[in-house]
């Protein structure tokens, strides 16, 4: 059997320190994207909300897509700020903020009408889930 000219090898396992450095480097790039993207999402949300507000002739839950996008942008910026202040960042934390603010957007939209009590309660439940995720994310995220 002819032997291959190339030998198989296992790459060297990075050390914990190297992984931390890689993560930090990635985060340095990512936080800028989160911040700029957050503002872009907020502006998009405002435009969509304004259009829907005009189209429907008032504020009601029809504006939910615009308001939700706006608050996703807010959540992105808060994530960057939160991570910068606490030095903690994790997917769970990020998700917690997103869920929390989607809940806030839902509540803001559904609060405009008495017939939507059930959806208001559902939004509050989403907010609570968001807060729980946020808390777990904050506790479990390693300090970088």
């Amino acid at each position: 059997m002819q032997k291959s000219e190339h030998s198989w090898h296992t790459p060297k396992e990075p050390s914990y320190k190297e992984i931390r450095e890689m993560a930090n480097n990635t985060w340095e790039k990512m936080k800028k994207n989160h911040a700029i993207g957050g503002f872009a999402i907020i502006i998009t949300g405002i435009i969509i909300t304004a259009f829907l507000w005009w189209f429907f002739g008032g504020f009601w839950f029809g504006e939910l897509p615009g308001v939700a996008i706006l608050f996703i942008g807010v959540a992105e910026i808060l994530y960057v700020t939160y991570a910068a202040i606490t030095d903690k960042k994790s997917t769970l934390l990020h998700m917690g903020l997103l869920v929390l603010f989607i809940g806030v957007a839902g509540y803001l939209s559904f609060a405009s009408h008495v017939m939507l009590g059930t959806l208001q309660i559902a939004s509050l439940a989403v907010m609570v889930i968001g807060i729980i995720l946020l808390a777990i994310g904050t506790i479990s995220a390693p300090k970088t």
Partner: protein
Amino acid sequence: MSDILQTKKTVLVLFMAAVMISSIFLRTNIRQSENGQPRTYIIPMEDWIRNDDVNAIRLVNALLEEGVPVYWALEEFTVGGSTYPAGTFYIKTPFTTRHGVSSKVMMDWVMWQAKLTRVWKIDVTAQSFTVNSKELILPRIVLFYDKTTYENALMHYLRFRSLGFKTVLANAGDLYTKAWNESGSVLNEANVFVMPGGAVHFWSFPYGAPQAWGIGNITEFVKNGGGYIGVCAGTVEALTTTGYGYCEFVNAYMYDGVRQDMYARDWKILQGPLYINVEQPNHPVMFGYGLGASRPGYGPQTTIYYLGGPAMYDVGLNATVLATYAAPITQEAMSTVSNQWGAAAVIGADYYDGKVVVFGPHPEYPGPCARLYAQALYYSANVPKPSRLDPIENGVMSETAISERVGTIKSTVSQIKPILDETTRTTSKIVNLRIGDIYHPLGIAVDVHLLSFCKELLAQLNDIQRYAVKFQYEYSKLNVLKGMVQNNPQLENLIEYGQAMISSFFNLTANLPPEEHVIFETHWSGIGPFPPFTEEATKFEELVNAFKYVNNETTAVLYPTAKDFAEVFQEYNRLRIQNQTAYTPEVNATLTELFQNITSQWPAGIHLQTYYTVFHTLDVVQYKIAYHIFNILTLADRTMEIISYVEFALATAVGPFNYAYAEIRAFMAHPEGAFL
């Protein structure tokens, strides 16, 4: 450094808390609500991007049912910097509905419903303005529902239902048994009589028979302020100069000397949508149509469906030509019918105190004429009449009884569906034999009417089942809400009213009113005998037997007859082509003889046999099935409107979280209903 971080953390936490807390306490409705101040709510019908005009009219009708004064601007007006054309609806507050609901709650409900039903723009102004208007009177419609109305009655019912008009179905028998102004007669409870298209309906009022009194009743009804809407054949019968000598409301002539083939078959080529010119855009019936129309399809020429209705000439003094036939769209009209362009297609007329609107073409068919039809009804309804759909007494059924009815309705619908499905498939096979070709001299046309009924009935059975499940859920919700408003008799009465309407719906399904038509077993020409029809339904669940009868007849009688006719039909077509391409006197003679055999009246040829067999089946479907389904749906639609505003008033009183609690309780009891 740690102090700065701590401050930042505090600011961040405070910011997030502020956003959440503000969202929890933000319950302001940013819409302009009445807040006790007089307001005018304006529904601009021309905003076609944001307003669905059919749904806007349905909303107006729901308000009229509640006794809310709705005004119809008869001229253009300006308020708050916006100009609104004639035909705009507006509602002034304050008012109180006939069930004691305040204008604030009612108009908030209207705005809510408007949003949900794609009427996305209702302008609200506090400024006062003056405009020449008509205070609308809700059209209480009697629709002639007879074998001579064919599919037209179905199309009318569907159109009226979509617009929120509640229809009473009446046959010749209903129209003669009591005088027009006698208590309990259908005409006494109505303010508009609608005669749809079809055959000449006066076959149903034969001279010398008691039914002929019905004609006198209709005439007196209109003379004394009632409205008359005629469509197609219903128009022919309302003309003074057609020679029928029946209603004679409109001084106009159906000139078959110009359109020579009126009683022949060349007009068939025109069937389908065509254009009409609006001659009187300032007439209330034509608001929003014509040269200045802003909605697509409403102008400059309006598209409307045509099925061989009259073209009218020599219009007299009591009548106004509202629209004329303009041009075909894709049809290539034969010279014998070409002179109908320019003749009157829609006429408005006064007959003593009554208003009459007659249409040659069909505004009830799909297309842009729904608003036109609604306007004709608003124009001709001038005598206020009370609602016919209120519950007789505020007696309510128990939840157990309702639960039983829901179970029965669901199981009935699931039994009917496969039967109806089979009937629909067989009817489709019949239609696919192409013997119904509306452009063919021998085409029987009505096979597709049977198919239309089958298709609509399936949708309507689903509607009834959905309503039953929904009403059970709503009834349960109202029970929970009742416990929250025990100190408020007005709200308690509203709840009882809503529950009584739900009970009426279930009661109707358990006690169907009798339908008087006799289904004959033989025809005068000797066709038949058909199996005797003994499946009169007195309850919704008994309709299963009628569906079975129709299915058996369609499979065992109608399809074989249609198949036999299709063979002859194809032979006739082959000979006709041969006669045109390779003419010989022998071929011509064979063709003529075949045509005579096919169309023979006595003994009945295969053409008449097929035609009558379809009609026999159609009669059972129309009278013994659809009649009951339509009546149930009319009541169900009205019940749903009432439930909708009653629950809105209750939610306003008890708040969103209490209302949500009632919803969740009802959901736990009847989860299916919450999702419908």
